[in-house]
């Protein structure tokens, strides 16, 4: 996150905390001790993106090499699992090597190599486990991904891996649930349950102020996984057999409840709201939930959460997703263009009406600190 608002130095912060009695006697030393820890997670985002791109390309080359040379049998699970584990262990060893002070160039190289081998190892391991589950390779992929994610998450500190690995696992679960190969009657129930559990979990992890940084990538993985699921639900990408059994109102209701809870906790904790604005906001959210798509409510959840807990990536994600889901919703509405025009205009008038209400009640003023 870039600096927002005014410039504040550490000394200013420490003095302010001491004046407010919010800093323990050894607090100053504890703060300074935090600055000495440098590693992959201290790289700016654009450098991490560069590391990720390089590692991905290298990993693809190694997979290509193994495939073309037939050094390992891609149809045999044993080779894949063993080689995969070997690569994962090598990646972890490289990561441990990184933590010791050394030259910057060596550290940069080892980080790249480590991430490359981790991607390669996980890919091979998951493929190997998938082959063990004949005729159920989908669930084999999920189990393989889950095993390797659980095993490596506490040890391997690369945040990109810590986000992508759980995300892959969650996405594989979802794709298995919507696959036409699996059961037909139960799956809509499971899909709803799966999405709702993710929403609750993501909300808990993001709202928990004491959440350790180690868990943040999982929270983001949950957020992205929910997005993937909602895209499939809203854009009708499931098979017709699944879609005919699926009722989106349950997910809408769950997201509406989640949004109202978020507003109550976040706006309430800022002490700027009274009962009336909260009731008005809740009513508006319920109305949006009744006439709109799950993706729209989800986007608003991300925006409110991102603004409330000052997580810019979440705010940006919600801002980017909102027009996508709005367009998708109205495009897929089973109405003619004239009716869609009315629906859009009506929704816009409703929101501007809410805006006018806020202006009339003087709720749209900036609060001076």
């Amino acid at each position, binding site marked *: *996150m*870039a*600096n*927002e608002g005014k*410039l*504040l130095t*550490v*000394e200013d*912060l420490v003095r*302010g*905390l001491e004046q407010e009695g919010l800093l*323990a006697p050894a*607090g100053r030393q*504890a*703060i*300074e*001790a935090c*600055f000495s*820890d*440098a590693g992959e*997670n201290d*790289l*700016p985002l654009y*450098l991490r993106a*560069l590391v990720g*791109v390089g590692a991905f390309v*290298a990993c693809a*080359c*190694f997979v290509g*090499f193994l495939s*073309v040379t037939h050094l390992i049998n891609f149809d045999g699970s044993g080779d894949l699992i063993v080689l995969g584990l070997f690569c994962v262990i090598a990646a972890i060893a490289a990561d441990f090597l990184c933590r010791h*002070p050394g030259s*910057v160039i060596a550290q*940069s*190289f080892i*980080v*790249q190599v480590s991430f*490359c081998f981790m991607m390669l190892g996980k890919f091979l391991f998951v493929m190997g486990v998938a082959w063990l589950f004949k005729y159920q390779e989908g669930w084999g992929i999920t189990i393989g991904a889950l095993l390797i994610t659980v095993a490596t998450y506490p040890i391997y500190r690369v945040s990109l891996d810590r986000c992508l690995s759980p995300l892959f696992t969650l996405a594989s679960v979802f794709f298995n649930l919507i696959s036409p190969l699996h059961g037909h009657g139960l799956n809509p129930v499971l899909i709803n349950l799966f999405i709702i559990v993710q929403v609750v979990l993501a909300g808990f992890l993001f709202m928990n*102020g*004491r959440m350790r940084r180690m868990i943040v990538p999982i929270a983001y993985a949950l957020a992205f996984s929910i997005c993937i699921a909602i895209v499939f639900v809203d854009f009708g990408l499931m098979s017709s057999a699944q879609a005919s059994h699926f009722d989106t109102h349950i997910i809408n209701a769950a997201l509406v409840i989640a949004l109202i809870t978020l507003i109550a906790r976040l706006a309430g904790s800022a002490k*700027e709201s009274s009962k009336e604005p909260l009731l008005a906001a809740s009513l508006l959210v319920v109305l949006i939930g009744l006439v709109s798509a799950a993706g729209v409510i989800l986007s608003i959840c991300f925006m409110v959460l991102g603004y409330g807990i000052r997580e*810019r990536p979440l705010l940006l994600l919600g801002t980017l997703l909102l027009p996508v889901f*709005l367009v998708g919703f*109205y495009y897929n509405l089973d109405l003619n263009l*004239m009716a*869609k*025009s009315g*629906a*859009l*205009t009506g929704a*816009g008038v*409703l*929101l*501007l009406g809410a*805006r006018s209400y*806020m202006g009339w009640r003087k*709720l*749209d*003023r900036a609060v001076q*600190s």
Partner: protein
Amino acid sequence: MLPFLLGGSAIMMQDNSSERILVNGRLIEKLAAHGAITAKAREYALNALCPRLNWGLWIARLLSTVGVALILSGIVYFFAFNWAKISPAIKLGSLELAMFACLIAAYASGLQRCLSGRLLLLSASALVGVLLAVFGQVYQTGADAYQLFMMWAILIIPWTIISEFTALWLLWLGVVNTFIILWWTQTSIISQRVDYTLFSWLIIFNCVFLGLREYASGIVRWIGDRYSRLVLVIAILIYALIPLIAVILEEQGRSLSMRIGALLALGVHAGFYGVFRFKRPDMPSLAAIFLSACIVVEVAIGKAAADIFPRSGGTTYLIVGPTTLGVFTLAVYQLRCIGKTLESHHG
């Protein structure tokens, strides 16, 4: 040894002076995660950094933006539904009315301090393009698409100049780039000798505007935002990559225009590095330049390996894989060093 902190905006000097370390949100979260500050202290720190969350103001803006967007979309759908039934006079008249309404509202709001005024002017500029398209459709003028974009760009120049709005300048540049591309593909007799000349023109044109932007940013206050620079840099690098990659991959059909384009592209990379490293230090732009350079190097190495070992795909992969790691490592290392140097100069 200078420890390098997350977010790139805080760095500890050799004398560990906390008076010089700037705080950002990520640093506060890191302190909280390490237990250096309590949850209450974290809340205090975040409020000190970014004064009180203005929920009311934020929600009001969100409702206004989304509400207006929905109403405009409703209007578009209305026109789409009734398009065949609407007479040409109403089609053109309604667009002109909308355009004038935006202009009057922009004038009333003012352009200097009010974002809504500039957004209205941007909307009016966008409507000019729609009006020209409808005009061409109604009167079946037979004009080529490039002529539409050319007229669009010419007509909105005055508004773009007075707007003092980066987004409108970027819209204008986008329209002009589209005009150049369409003009080239629709009117030029493209022989093999000149097939890559388009990219050279695009590079030169956009570099001129980037140069003007950099020159003016020191004088004109509103050209301060970095995203306009990054957008232009990325666009130019994309145009530069095409002839560069083509000249690497083409074995026998390297036209003169391709070679010139590739030389120009190399010059652009070198020039950008010099400017954004020494004159106008900017890490995101440097990261884009390094990524572009890495792509070129990767393609070159891959092509060389495939040529040397034509029947051995495995060897090609074996060479490219570790080389990729090396190339990107060098890029990351160089960027980290540059970043540290720049921060120590500004600290």
